[in-house]
């Protein structure tokens, strides 16, 4: 479909490729509801993900209230507490972060940044969203069935997940959870194939792979990983569903439950953990890589400087993606698997630190000698660097097998993964929303509200999770409804828990301000124009803002240069759009 020059020095052929035929909507329903336009689907994905994310936020408040004031809120009993933590975790990881980064940002940015009219399979793309919505509804249904949602913890470890000692284990909860996951994976696969094929086949003329913005590299690599990792969760969910509904024993050994011999026998609980983490660890990077990519572009645009070491950044993304498939059992150092695995998995895990550190260096070296505009997206990018470095470094504790032994299953783990895959990627999500909102709506978000939102969210989240590590170091185990009297719960630790809860309530309240800003600016925000940040990438070069169906008007853009021509010496402006011809071959790759 598109001729890519075989060498980057080849002249770019004239426009001779036939344009794609798009499905043009005929009614309000096909324009806004059953739309096949990736941009509309992106907004549907994002709004759904953010809505369910707000549910997870409220659940986190409830669990924090219990931890700070045990017994005061009587409706939070032990059953409900475990249901809240389970639903909070699963919603945040799968239904918010994965769906928002890939379904939301992926759908919006892939066609626009690559100079395509739309995704290559618009109909499957639409189906992907509706199946995702169905998965969310099935998940939420758990709150309304007898017994409530599952309280097995987001890792759903059997045998407890399907036994009566766990909320929802012998009721509807676990069945709905597993069904919802299966639906999510089906829906994601439809969307994911779309993203991959569009990146490989749908790029504008001249958009070589090594000219793609890092945002697209991050989303693309994460999608490939998700397509490889989610099947493991899929089979694990199907097998556990069979164990629960049909009485099979994939994960169920001989068990005496409360004095009764069960009919199960011969299954392996550890097998589930291997399948779960074969998905679960890549999942961390499925969330992190799009964040890495997006934050690279935010830093570059708002520091008016090319991303430092672009090629190294691309390879780091690819290498991290590949390595993340051989580290899964670092979640299982104390699971009872053969302890000799520890040598292998600790080594692979710590090797990942090297490409990850290179990414951090390149972000801060992009700031070095830049022209830093402290816009809201830049502030969130700085917040990301601080929280990601913090959370990444504590990963070196938990990845180093013997250090993990005392810390595993403690609050240290909770603090670590919230910092690194909760706070840090969410910083990027907010930065990205402030950055692209003007393209999506044609208006700027309000600056003052944005600054308040940033500082409360960043400092508040840091104050929640940084001290929490020390509760884990002290020895406080995670997933305790109440710790009560214990050597690991001195009165000072209880005071700290109250402080953390107050911070959590504050940070949560700040999100209301963000939602208000997003709604208010839709009508009242400053007019953004087509390219308010003076950025080089193609989504900012559309003829109208917001971009129409088909994105680019009559002519698709032709790409002549990489995405990072900022502050090029001798250029009249401090940015040169990717579709600006480069007659003197000044762009970086021609020179090198």
């Amino acid at each position: 479909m598109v001729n890519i020059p075989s060498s980057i020095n080849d002249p770019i052929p004239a426009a001779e490729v036939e344009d794609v035929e798009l499905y043009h909507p005929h009614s309000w329903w096909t324009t806004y509801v059953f739309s096949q336009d990736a941009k509309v689907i992106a907004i549907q994905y994002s709004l759904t993900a953010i809505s369910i994310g707000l549910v997870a936020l409220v659940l986190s408040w409830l669990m924090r209230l219990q931890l700070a004031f045990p017994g005061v809120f009587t409706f939070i009993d032990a059953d409900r507490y475990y249901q809240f933590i389970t639903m909070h975790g699963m919603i945040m990881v799968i239904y918010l972060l994965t769906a928002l980064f890939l379904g939301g940002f992926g759908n919006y940015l892939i066609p626009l940044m690559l100079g395509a009219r739309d995704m290559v399979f618009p109909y499957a793309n639409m189906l992907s969203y509706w199946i995702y919505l169905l998965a969310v509804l099935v998940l939420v249904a758990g709150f309304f069935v007898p017994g409530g949602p599952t309280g097995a913890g987001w890792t759903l470890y059997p045998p407890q997940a399907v036994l009566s000692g766990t909320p929802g284990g012998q009721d509807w909860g676990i069945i709905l959870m597993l069904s919802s996951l299966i639906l999510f994976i089906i829906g994601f696969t439809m969307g994911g194939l779309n993203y991959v094929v569009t990146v490989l086949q749908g790029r504008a003329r001249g958009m070589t792979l090594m000219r793609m913005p890092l945002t697209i590299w991050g989303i693309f690599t994460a999608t490939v990983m998700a397509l490889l990792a989610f099947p493991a969760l899929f089979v694990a969910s199907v097998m556990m569903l069979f164990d629960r509904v049909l009485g099979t024993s994939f994960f169920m050994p001989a068990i005496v439950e409360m004095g009764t011999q069960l009919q199960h026998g011969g299954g392996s609980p550890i097998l589930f953990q291997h399948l779960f983490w074969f998905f679960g660890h890549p999942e961390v990077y499925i969330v992190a890589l799009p964040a890495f990519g997006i934050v690279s572009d935010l830093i570059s645009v708002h520091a008016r400087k090319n991303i430092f070491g672009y090629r190294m950044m691309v390879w780091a993304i690819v290498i991290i993606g590949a390595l993340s498939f051989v580290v899964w059992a670092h979640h299982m150092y104390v699971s009872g698997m053969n302890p000799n695995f520890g040598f292998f998995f600790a080594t692979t895990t710590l090797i990942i630190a090297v490409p990850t550190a290179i990414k951090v260096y390149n972000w801060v070296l992009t700031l070095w000698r830049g022209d830093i505009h402290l816009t809201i997206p830049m502030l969130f990018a700085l917040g990301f660097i601080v929280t990601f470095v913090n959370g990444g470094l504590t990963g070196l504790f938990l990845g180093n097998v013997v250090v993990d032994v005392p810390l595993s299953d403690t609050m240290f783990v909770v603090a670590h993964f919230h910092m690194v895959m909760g706070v840090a990627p969410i910083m990027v999500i907010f930065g990205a929303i402030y950055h692209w909102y003007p393209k999506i709506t044609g208006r700027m978000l309000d600056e003052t509200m944005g600054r308040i939102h940033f500082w409360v969210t960043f400092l508040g989240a840091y104050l929640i999770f940084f001290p929490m590590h020390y509760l884990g170091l002290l020895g406080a185990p995670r997933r305790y409804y109440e710790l009560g009297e214990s050597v690991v719960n001195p009165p000072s630790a209880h005071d700290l828990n109250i402080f953390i809860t107050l911070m959590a309530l504050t940070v949560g309240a700040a999100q209301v301000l963000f939602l208000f800003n997003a709604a208010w600016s839709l009508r009242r925000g400053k007019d953004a124009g087509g390219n308010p940040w003076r950025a080089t990438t193609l989504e900012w070069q559309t003829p109208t803002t917001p971009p129409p169906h088909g994105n680019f008007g009559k002519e698709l853009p032709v790409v002549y240069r990489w995405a990072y021509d900022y502050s090029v010496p001798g250029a009249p402006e401090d940015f040169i759009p990717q579709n600006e011809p480069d007659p003197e071959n000044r762009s970086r790759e021609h020179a090198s």
Partner: protein
Amino acid sequence: MAVVLILAFVAVASVLFHLLSPWWWTPIASNWQYIDNTIIITFWITGFVFVAVVLFVAYCVLRFRHKPGNRAHYEPENRKLEFWLATVTTIGVVAMLAPGLFVWDRFVNVPSDATEVEVVGQQWLWSFRLPGANGKLGTSETRDITAENPLGVNKNDSAGLDDIIIQGGELHLPIGKPVKMVLRSIDVLHDFYVPEFRAKMDMVPGMVTYFWITPTRTGTFEVLCAELCGVGHPQMRGTVVVDNEADYQTWLQQQQTFTQMMAASGEPQTAQ
């Protein structure tokens, strides 16, 4: 300017918090001082990197924030710098990993003179089994569990008849002697966790897991469950007492054997 100050404050305050925080690990009561040492090494290396990166970012914002007429420097890559940063990072990683793997090697290799002690987890209770006079634990099987034989000890295995069974009571361990904790569960996952011992391991129905320690300090320690095991998870507590040898022997003499337990429940013996 506010951004610079706040970033610098985050770095400095984090270090101060670390140094002044009252929340630190419990005094150790086992031989795994090595683990604590590895954690200290990791704190030093990661703490240095964290402070360096955050202060560098703060400096960049201070020095290179936008002023009218400013223009960024154009430098797409610098292979020499990237190479050196990657090399230094690799050295830092090796400095943490090497001692970690060295200690792990000790952790997985149980000394040959270690005594076996079995811990059995169930919702939501700890039970223990110690070898009797013959120094060996008999075999056991989840399928053999009955109301009279709650741990499923094999009645046909003579090695198990003198095993000492402690159901829901305290476990005592002698100080200074290596002990291999053999871990079983009869229902769901549990995890035998004594914060002062540093070591912990999941207990998995259908298989036997283990870790080993040498208690180094007498005292009474709390056992917590560290793997979510249902709604009773937080209530699943137990007690381990580390005794000197004389106290340990006194305690041991008061415990009942498997044979005595079966006799008390009136079930006939089947082994010779």
